[in-house]
């Protein structure tokens, strides 16, 4: 688990090379096969790429991420590589193009090492919903690493890549970051192009980085952020230098604690761990106040109405007609559709497609989808009001630490509650980060979440960086 800073120092000192770095990660991937972290590994390509970057480093022409090895959640397209989305239906599907985030990483001379396991179509909070088997928590194989970007979190935690790209629709970066003990950030909606991110819920999906430290996350975000003409919803907002905003200066910072996030559902150990961090903020000159986000109770319901509605439409293209899994010898068109989708999708995906189809159907649209949109606006307004008084909000990332595999697999509602503190940021479109916040008595990582104003990732990262190094 070396940070990018250390790798760069070693590169400058000549004690390592990009090739050696890549080989170290490849060896770790090999040794960690039991964790089921990767769905594809580009061993030879990554090595060759690293060799080329070593040459660039020598000639002084290397990009800002030279020396960094990145893994990518298998829901983000890498040209000429499979993009399975953790699903049978795309098991052998190869992407024709690079996602914008990936092409920007490549242009910055990061090495892409492989694709990470995940909950099918990013639907889940434990990475148990992958068609290719669950991902194990490195600290305890009987437990889950969170989800849906569980593979990415474990890849960073287990030293299989320096950083990783994940996607976060309702907490899918922050929650696994918390459960595995790494840093994971969901940027503002529109900050990072979604082009090449296979859609789950288009109005909520965000690509974001995982890293062993906030600084690495900041470095990756700087490269992947910014307007992209291939994504109409990507914002034309300047991208600051996030790394240089990590000043650790929090004097006068206004910190809000949304009282609704510290209710009875919260595990005591997590509460205490988060409160210890807040105390350190106070001691270092921050003003900490309690705030209220009154619509919090509606977040999960709103999220599951809107996300599933969009998913039901986004996943319609997987019909067996043009690519992906197709049922054998169907009688007619309808049977081809039904059988391909019945066999190609897993249970959770089908559950959400049905939910989403239902909330959009004639006669229910107003009661569910439309109302969901109205409540989404109320949630947005809550944050808007809170951010008039404070610069950031601090909450726990997840109500529990890593749970046992199978513990919630048969109880979707319990599973959905894993996202109780994270869906709000997607609904409001604001940035959020999860940073490690110590361990519970069982030695399982606890995560703390920092939420910020739209496009104010700089402040979020600065606070996270402070918290990471000050206990």
């Amino acid at each position: 688990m070396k940070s990018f800073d250390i790798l760069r120092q070693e590169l400058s000192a000549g004690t390592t090379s990009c090739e050696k770095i890549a080989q170290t990660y490849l060896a770790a991937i090999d040794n960690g096969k039991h964790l089921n972290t990767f769905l594809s590994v580009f061993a030879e390509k990554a090595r060759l790429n690293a060799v080329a970057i070593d040459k660039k480093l020598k000639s002084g022409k290397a990009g800002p991420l030279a020396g960094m090895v990145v893994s990518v959640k298998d829901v983000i397209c890498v040209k000429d590589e499979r993009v399975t989305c953790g699903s049978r239906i795309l098991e052998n599907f190869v992407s024709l193009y690079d996602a914008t985030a990936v092409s920007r990483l490549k242009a910055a001379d990061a090495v892409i090492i492989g694709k990470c396991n995940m909950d099918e179509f990013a639907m889940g909070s434990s990475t148990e919903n992958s068609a290719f088997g669950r991902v194990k928590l490195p600290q305890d194989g009987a437990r889950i690493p969170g989800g849906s970007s569980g593979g990415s979190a474990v890849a960073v935690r287990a030293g299989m890549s320096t950083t990783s790209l994940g996607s976060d629709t309702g907490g899918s970066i922050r929650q696994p970051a918390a459960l595995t003990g790494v840093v994971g950030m969901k940027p503002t909606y529109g900050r990072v192009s979604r082009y090449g991110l296979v859609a789950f819920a288009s109005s909520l999906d965000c690509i974001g980085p995982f890293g062993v430290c906030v600084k690495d996350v900041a470095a990756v975000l700087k490269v992947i952020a910014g307007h992209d003409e291939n994504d109409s919803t990507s914002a034309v907002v300047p991208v600051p230098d996030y790394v240089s905003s990590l000043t650790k200066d929090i004097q006068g910072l206004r910190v809000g604690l949304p009282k609704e996030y510290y209710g009875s559902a919260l595990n005591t150990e997590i509460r205490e761990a988060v409160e210890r961090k807040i105390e350190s903020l106070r001691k270092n000159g921050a003003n900490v106040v309690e705030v209220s986000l009154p619509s919090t109770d509606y977040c999960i319901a709103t999220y599951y109405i809107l996300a599933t509605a969009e998913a039901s439409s986004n996943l319609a293209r997987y019909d067996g007609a043009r690519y992906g899994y197709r049922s054998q010898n169907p009688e007619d068109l309808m049977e081809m559709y039904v059988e391909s989708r019945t066999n190609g999708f897993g249970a959770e995906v089908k559950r959400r497609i049905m939910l989403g189809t239902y909330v959009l159907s004639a006669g229910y649209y107003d009661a569910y989808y439309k109302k969901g949109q109205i409540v989404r606006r109320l949630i947005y307004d809550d944050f808007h009001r809170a951010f008039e008084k404070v610069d950031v909000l601090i909450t726990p990332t997840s109500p529990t630490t890593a749970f046992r595999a199978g513990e919630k697999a048969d109880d979707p509602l319990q599973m959905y509650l894993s996202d109780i503190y994270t869906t709000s940021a997607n609904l409001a479109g604001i940035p959020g980060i999860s940073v490690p916040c110590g361990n519970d008595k069982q030695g399982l990582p606890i995560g703390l979440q920092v939420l910020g104003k739209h496009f104010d990732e700089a402040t979020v990262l600065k606070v996270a960086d402070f918290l990471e190094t000050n206990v």
Partner: protein
Amino acid sequence: MPSNEHYEPVIGLEVHCQLLTKSKAFCSCSTQFGNEPNSNVCPICLGMPGVLPVLNKQVVEFTIKMGLATHCTIAPKSIFARKNYFYPDLPKGFQISQYEEPLCTDGFVDIEFEDGKKKKIGITRIHMEEDAGKSIHDIDIDTVVDVNRCGVPLIEIVSEPDLRSPHEAYLYLYKIRQIVTYLGICDGNMEEGSLRCDANVSVRKKGETKFGTKTEVKNMNSFRFVERALEYEIGRQIALLEDGQKVLQETLLWDSNQGIAVPMRSKEEAHDYRYFPEPDLVPVAVNQNWVNKVKATLPEFPSERRDRYLKEYKLPKYDADVLTTEKGLADYFEGVVENLDKKSDETYKLASNWTMTDVLRVLKVQHIEISDFPVPPKNLSEMINLIVDGTISGKIAKDVFEEMLKSKDSPRTIVEKRGLVQVSEEGAIEKVVDEILSKNKEQVDKYRSGKNQVFGFFVGETMKAMKGKANPKMVNEILKKKLSS
């Protein structure tokens, strides 16, 4: 059916026009018609995982044009929606369209009857959407799909139920086609499917204010079929009602071979499209400045143009109507007028005559569009100039015109090459006239004794002797002078 006259049909049309943008609505693929199947495609219009649509601004601009031309309100903010359904020629499993907030609303067009009377037909809305691909079933291997058309931009123009007869529907459709072709936003070709029309039809007893149960008729892919299909469906509905039965709300497909409309299977039409706002596209913002800019580019419309022809060129109404029916023809005519040396009501009428009769005849015989007509307007004006300045006669001009169709030569070159220049030299004509008169003493006597009709004989003989090149006016004058002396 004797009871027909007690009923009144109520018709509304939904017209789809394929826009003439170079690239598709949401990606940069070509919209070229007739390319190799599945060649105008990219990951975006193929609906590959992870792609996103990016709106082609020209689609908005063309739609604003249509909105302005039909007196619509242009919404400062409109949104795209997804229309969800499964079909193999719909790669994403949804069509990007507009639903709750379309770009244009509340407009109208005037349709014009043969007697010159007009009727206002309301336009409910005009919205933007993307086309689906083409499923081809009549190939022996299986059903195949060509997705070249996927993502080609369309506008859908929805009329109010203001049409009261198949003929009115025809006139309305005609008017819509005229407007889109004048605007240059659609080629208006119904056979190739760049203009498509569905109809909502119901009938009610005359005097009744409530609408009857409507059916939707689809697949009427020519102007003729629209009228015939509507007549069929109105007749069918009246017969049902007269028989004490009810009209079923359903969708029918016009079968032009059998001349009947067949109900679609209920499974095919039982769609719940689950429209919802397209989250991959931001709302379309159109400010007044943009609207004004587009307004400034609007061409003159047929009725305005016709009125101008009456005033400016003093053309008969018939001429003005014919010339302005099609934008291309009117543009051609004005191209001819522009290059006339002498500009007078007389030369305008000449230009009109040649365009209306000779040019149109060639278009009809050769089955070509005015854009493919081989003679540039400048050349036709040059030919008319030659008539006006007396270089050639109207009769010779007919030959020159035929020659112009075949060669690229200018009329002047043709005249020179073929020695078609008109003889206007008095001495030369006099010499021939003298010969003719001396050879035909008998006829000269007849004429002088009052039989004026033999005058034509002398004209004919003179022209024949001069191979038609004599200036006819001068031949007349000289003959008259000699015969009466």
